[in-house]
């Protein structure tokens, strides 16, 4: 499936191909530590067991302090 990711920290938007289904698998594939981010879809915060759908737009919000 195709997922659009908006990364807050990097201020980038990109499309990626993903063959899994769950949020935690998705983060692992992108090498993103789940402790350091919140994953948001349509203004809803997702937990790690949630299923992603083709054409989802996902925001990756950084939880670590910037200072």
């Amino acid at each position, binding site marked *: 499936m195709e997922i659009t990711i908006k990364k*807050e*920290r990097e201020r980038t938007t990109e499309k990626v191909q993903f063959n899994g289904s769950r949020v935690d698998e998705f983060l692992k594939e992108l090498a993103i*530590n*789940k*402790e*350091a981010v*919140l994953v*948001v879809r349509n203004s*809803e*915060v997702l*937990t*790690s*067991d*949630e299923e992603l759908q083709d054409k989802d737009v996902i925001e990756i*919000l*950084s*939880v*670590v*302090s*910037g*200072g």
Partner: protein
Amino acid sequence: MKCHCQSKAVIELQHAALCKSHFIRYFEEKVFKTINKHRLIDRDEKLCIATSGGKDSLTVLYLTKKYLKKYKMDNELVALAVDEGIEGYRAKTLEDLKKFCEEQEVKLNIVSFEKGLGKSLDEAYPIINKGTSKKPCNVCGVWRRYLLNKYARDLGATKVVTGHNLDDEAQAIVMNMFKANTKLAGRLGPISGVQEHKLFTQRVKPLYFCNEKEVRLYTLLKGWQVEFTECPYAHSGYRHEIQSMLNDFEEKYSGTKQGIVNSFLALLPLLKEEKGEIGKCKECGEAANKGVCNACKMKEMVNNAV
């Protein structure tokens, strides 16, 4: 994943998952319990909230106000921000902060490195680094604490309330341990400092047991505008590496950060026994371990280079 009330969960904690309303209640109760258990705020105190405009300081400002209201306390409350003079970084967070303080009806005072110490961090750091190889975060930490303490006292505050969270504390504990800084470690804890002194304004940390993920989620669910802005110097610091390491451990072994802080709290009374003598800085009259305080030493390096 579902909350115990069967609503959709927004966070998985170590032993449970919580929905939006149960998370907000859990988070606020945790902060209020921390204030009560560690007696962070007394009725007759004037409070100065150390603010930056980031998620932690907005949360601590809002919840301190909410705590005072809940317990019908009429403590005076002011906010203080330090503008370090870092191009492209602090100006944006200060704009967000001004708006937030207006909404919360809390008076905001801003003091800058330039006004308080003569030079911005961008100007001072390269000069100090040349003579000492100190990193920008070392300079910033010393000067920030110096100005916060001094100006909070000038504002008549008896306590400085900071937004330090569980991650900040776990990082500081590990950093001090790795560098064998037991004296500095004794100054950590929900109430900073090893002893009371008239020149020190005690710093208290209501978010002490809240991790960064919880704080960011709280601000998100409250609908506050907290845009991620990163200090351009952040990656040069030792703390940044410790932060990544602890997040890696937390991902593999849930509860690691909490474990570090809990173990530390059990040892803290022993660390606080080591009390050094506190004197007055010969230059500025602020507290100093001996002779001249670190803030003045750095200021002198900058002045001598001009």
